[in-house]
């Protein structure tokens, strides 16, 4: 990936309140040019609000947003080189697909032949050429979604904002569109700011992800960073599946800690804080194995068949629950219910969290 490291969008301590409600409380983000950047978080965490601030539909309460170094606070939406793919598409119902796509160019003053040519090209890019003369209402959800995408891409914005564009599509289509969107982003070199509450979507497409909760950014990083080195319980829990084990922290430096597991075993693991005392350790189910002599002992409660995987749910002696994922291909027989097993946490895979 050849990422130029110039900054496209620089958000500094953005605060947005609606009356009593604080939708964003001091968000700072630095989004690079040509980046596929994702805002990920549960519903109501402020993702849409942040996009609307960038697009100019809402006024920022405090803080600053810079677009390629320029403060855009005073720019009306129609003067920002930013286009949006709306969550519910907001296609113009009285215009043909082609006119919808050409609208931005028309408003920019591009003459009719040029804008129709360009709109035709963009429609081809999203495989909708044969629907150019239809009205939006005559298209399926997936096709409407592509029109919305084409309409936002046609004026060649510097930044494209996408608000949960795939959430209304069925699973198959959603998966196909993920690949296509990513490809489109790489081909056009436009900076994408993509909003989703679907962690799988975020992990598969993004260069970097900002995980949000309650109007704040919890963690920013690549998919791997966020999955493998979550900083706190929220991120660890929200991204993928994880086991959160309560442990005693014996010693802790900025990034390495010695913890005592339930049952008394002592391990060294990466740490996201420097506190000692009772804290949570995160370990992914697929990084726990059943061993002859591991560092945890547990009793099997349930074995769930998941096709490629087997999920084993067990409890420790202090009654904390642990979930384990075993590859179904392993030749060993699955453990029986009620069986005592010994578990091994993969070296370096467990991580001590800041709360």
């Amino acid at each position, binding site marked *: 990936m050849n990422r130029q490291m110039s900054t496209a969008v620089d958000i500094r301590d953005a605060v947005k309140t609606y009356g009593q409600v604080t939708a964003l409380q001091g968000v700072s983000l630095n989004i690079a040019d040509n980046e596929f950047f994702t805002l990920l978080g549960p519903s109501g965490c402020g993702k849409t609000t942040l996009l609307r601030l960038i*697009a*100019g*539909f809402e006024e920022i309460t405090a803080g600053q947003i810079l677009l390629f170094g320029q403060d855009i606070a005073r720019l*009306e*939406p*129609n*003067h920002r080189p*930013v*286009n*949006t793919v*709306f969550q*519910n598409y*907001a*296609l*113009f*119902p*009285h215009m043909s697909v082609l006119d919808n796509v050409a*609208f*931005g160019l028309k*408003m*920019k003053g591009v003459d009719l032949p040029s804008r129709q040519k360009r709109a035709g090209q963009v429609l081809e890019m999203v495989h909708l050429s044969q629907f150019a003369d239809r009205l939006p209402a005559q298209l399926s959800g997936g096709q409407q979604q592509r029109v919305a995408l084409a*309409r*936002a891409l046609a*004026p060649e914005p510097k930044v494209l904002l996408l608000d949960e564009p795939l959430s209304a599509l069925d699973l198959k289509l959603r998966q196909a569109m993920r690949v296509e969107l990513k490809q489109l982003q790489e081909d056009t070199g436009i900076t994408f700011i993509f909003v989703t509450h679907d962690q799988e979507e975020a992990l598969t497409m993004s260069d970097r992800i900002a995980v949000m909760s309650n109007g704040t950014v919890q963690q920013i990083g690549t998919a791997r960073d966020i999955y493998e080195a979550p900083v706190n319980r929220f991120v660890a829990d929200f991204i993928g599946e994880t086991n959160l084990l309560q442990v005693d922290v014996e010693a802790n430096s900025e990034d390495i800690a010695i913890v005592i597991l339930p049952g008394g075993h002592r391990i060294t693991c990466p740490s996201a804080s420097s506190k000692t005392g009772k804290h949570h350790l995160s370990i992914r189910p697929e990084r726990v194995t059943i061993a002859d002599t591991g560092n945890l002992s547990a009793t099997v409660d349930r074995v769930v068949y998941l096709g490629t995987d087997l999920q084993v749910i067990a409890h420790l002696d202090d009654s904390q629950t642990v979930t384990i994922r075993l590859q179904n291909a392993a030749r060993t027989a699955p453990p029986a219910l009620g069986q005592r097993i010994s578990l091994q946490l993969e070296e370096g895979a467990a991580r001590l969290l800041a709360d």
Partner: protein
Amino acid sequence: MAAPGPQPQTGDAAYRGIVRPLLLPTWAVIGILMVLPVALMAVYSFLTKEFRGGVEWDFTLAAYDQFFVTRGLFGDEPPQIEWTYISIFWRSIWQAALATLLCLLIGFPTAWFIATRPAKTRGIWLFLITIPYWVNLLIRTVSLRFLLRDQGPLNEGLIDLGLISEPLQIINTNLAVQLGLFYSYLPFMVLPIYAAVERYNFALSEAAADLYASRWATLREIVLPVVKPGIIAGCILVFVPSLGAFLAPDLLGGAKTFMIGSLIDEQFKGSQGNWPFGAAVAMILMSLVLIVLLLYARAQTRGAR
């Protein structure tokens, strides 16, 4: 006796047995209140006028002849086009069109304002708009006459303020008729536009602004086309009754502002009346309105394709 059993199906005997009788009241209302009066009027327009009002059952085209053709004062000249009534029609169309435009210019922003209030207060605004219409139209028109006359509150107020020295001649002018029509039919413009704007998806305006449209361009390219059905419904609802209105022209206008409604009204009053002629004028007016509506409907279906 109705025993529990299969539900009646559309199109079978049960449908004919149950649904048809239930539709009877509807047909009765349409028949008695709409078809019958129009048919009666159509028949009357071909009958012969009886002295002192009423009709004789003698079929003739005399009424239509009187409307369109003149043969001079004594009826002995070669037939020519009679312009008297056509020009009354023409003037009425102008008046109605102007009233419609005025209602649109005021009604659209009003409807927009109401539709963009918080959902809780919209009902109150709509109620305020409709309050005056609980009072009879005749009384409201007479009150307007009282307000606008030379010694009325409007003129006296302006004189007291020192803005004018002589009362403005408003009553008995086209302006007064315009004001009367505007005031009578404004809600018919506001309500359908309100309904359209209320359904308008404001995300479309955001999408337009996002795609570099100015406020004016958004209004022209997106808002107006999308709420157009409401605007057209409002225009029809104001134009059609304005065209046939007789209270406002009668009470607020003078001799020069004579409109179709008054012409028809006159034919059915007192011994001067001419029922067949009144019926013929009404039929011509109705045909005109129907033609306009049909043209509009055809333009709509063609536009949708």
